[in-house]
């Protein structure tokens, strides 16, 4: 284990300088650029950003669910429990999926297989990783459904996905992700976006509970700052494939630094801090095309503080505090003056 730096006792996942491209007919889509993120054991890290900012690609790079081709890891490393994931053979990745790295998806409507019962889908995950009989696996499935608080689980295992409500389905999805014998990382890709607000809160509570009882880390992907405030320990803000700000959740909400983060928070209606604002502010302009994006700060074309430098090069890291970093030319100057 030579990679001493990433194997601190408390680090579970470490992504280092990841560049992920999609080579499509029209050119190269630079989906993730120079991204470094660590996830500690037992923490919830959220990746925040609007759709297409590379947050899902990053998550899928960990359990290698990005379609390859057209996806290509241009450079970078991903360590999980000291293992260099990108060099592991496919069979070992498959063995990690569902045991140490599990995943829940955005659309509970489409994420469960419509032609198999909930029970058989969960049982199948068990039987993939453990040598147990069908009956035992089904019994475990019942236990899991109970754990995710689905009422009368022994009946529900015989249901097909379309017979469950959206919230129930998401619980079943979570149960499936928990069928792993040794929970390590759960990747939750917009787990509540498709749900009603009340059910959203229930699912988030459930995830928080499970995190404690099972002792897992959560990589939560969302565009919803409300979800971030409820779930996150640490937050990484992404924009057009780049990390633009990283902070613990308190610092981020108390002292957002990057103009984009500010924009995100300004468009959040419920945050009391911004209640004074007259109206919700949308950020002007559009996300740059990842096919033609240059080397400058990707937010430059929408930023109120844009300077010549912003268009030419991506800024260096600026340390605000031990838990708060930002990548912005404007702030570099500001902080420099202080």
């Amino acid at each position: 284990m030579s990679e001493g730096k990433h194997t601190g006792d408390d680090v579970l996942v470490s992504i280092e300088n990841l560049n992920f491209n999609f080579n499509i007919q029209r050119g190269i889509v630079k989906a993730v650029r120079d991204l470094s993120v660590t996830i500690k054991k037992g923490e919830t890290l959220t990746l925040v950003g609007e759709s297409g900012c590379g947050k899902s690609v990053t998550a899928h790079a960990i359990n290698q669910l990005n379609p390859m081709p057209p996806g290509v890891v241009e450079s970078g490393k991903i360590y999980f429990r000291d293992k260099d994931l990108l060099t592991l053979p496919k069979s070992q990745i498959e063995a990690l999926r569902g045991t140490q790295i599990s995943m829940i998806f955005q659309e509970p409507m489409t994420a469960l297989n419509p032609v198999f019962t909930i029970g058989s889908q969960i049982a199948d995950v068990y039987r993939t990783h453990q040598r147990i009989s069908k009956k035992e696996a089904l019994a475990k499935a019942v236990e899991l459904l109970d754990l995710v608080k689905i009422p009368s689980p022994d009946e529900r295992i015989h249901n097909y996905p379309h017979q469950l409500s959206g919230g129930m389905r998401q619980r079943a999805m979570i149960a499936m992700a928990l069928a792993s014998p040794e929970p390590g990382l759960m990747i939750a890709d917009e787990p509540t976006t498709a749900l009603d607000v009340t059910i959203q809160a229930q699912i988030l509570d459930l995830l928080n509970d499970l995190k404690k009882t099972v002792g897992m880390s959560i990589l939560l992907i969302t565009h919803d700052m409300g979800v971030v405030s409820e779930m996150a320990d640490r937050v990484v803000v992404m924009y057009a494939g780049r990390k633009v700000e990283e902070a613990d959740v308190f610092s981020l909400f108390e002292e957002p630094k990057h103009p984009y983060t500010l924009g995100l928070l300004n468009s959040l209606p419920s945050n009391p801090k911004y209640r004074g604002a007259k109206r919700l502010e949308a950020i002007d302009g559009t996300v740059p095309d990842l096919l033609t994006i240059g080397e400058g700060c990707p937010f430059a074309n929408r930023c109120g503080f844009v300077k010549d430098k912003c268009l030419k090069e991506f800024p260096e890291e600026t340390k605000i505090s031990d838990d708060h970093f930002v990548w912005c030319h404007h702030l570099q100057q500001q902080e420099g003056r202080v």
Partner: protein
Amino acid sequence: MLKHIFKRLLLLIPTLFGVITLVFFMIALAPGDPARVMLGERANAQQLEQLREELGLDKPLIQQYGLYLSRIVRLDLGKSITSGQQIKDEISERFPATIELAIWAMIFASTIGIIVGVTSARKRNSWIDYTAMGGSLVGVSMPVFWLGLVLIMIFSVWLDLLPTGGRMNVRYYFQPITNFYILDGIILWIREGNSQYLVSAFQHLILPTIALGTIPLAIIARTTRSSMLEVLQQDYIKTARSAGIKERRVVFRYALKNALLPVITIIGLQFGLLLSGAILTETVFSWPGIGKWIYVAIGARDYPAVQGGIIFISVFFVLINLVVDILYSVINPKIRMQ
């Protein structure tokens, strides 16, 4: 479920009624005097009169129609002009031959078609995919009867491996039991310990099966491929992968069962079409089935036989579609539950 079947059965009645009506009037309103056409130019007035009376042609059209309907309800299709036998008997004597061929052709087409389609989808845009899809396009562009003749030319004439036509080696003293020769062959093998009938029946089936099955094979392969490609992009496939299910199992269990739903509809439709495609194949291979019988009846202008044969095949076609519809709802849990 039962209600669904019952409803479909009820809906069948007007369709069947329509089919019978259409066939009756198409033949009845055909230009020219059927009796004259049947007997030829040299028939005298008395013969004509006799035949007209026999066929009920001397009565007003509406009355003829009423009579025809009342006979059909009693499952009486009338007598063949050429053989003087009950058409019902002629059909039931030949139908097993047609069905046997159609079933084998369909088994051949479905198994190979599904395997080719799945492989093509998995290796999308590889040379395997291009070859398979190019091949299936050639398959649907080929005249069936020509393929039959070419097969005979290669395998019977040049290589002398397989018989050119018929269902059984004529030198054998063979008494059909069920009229399904493969089945008869097995029964005789068990009963008499002589496998020659089974072997011969099998040999006679090979070429007609390939000829008749090629078009459905091509269509099934294309449908399976596109359906599989669509399914493989679904979220639930990602879910299964993220849970560590092995790739083979993901494809052959999780994806295939979903992908087969539209394929089943196509298989059913093709099975119905095979019965009419049989008219060409049976003619080429001297296969003593319903297709060849109708062909001969058309040549002999045996209108009652043509009428009866076509009504029979159409009714069978409609029934097959019903069975497929029911089968589809059995496999698809979404419909089954309604």
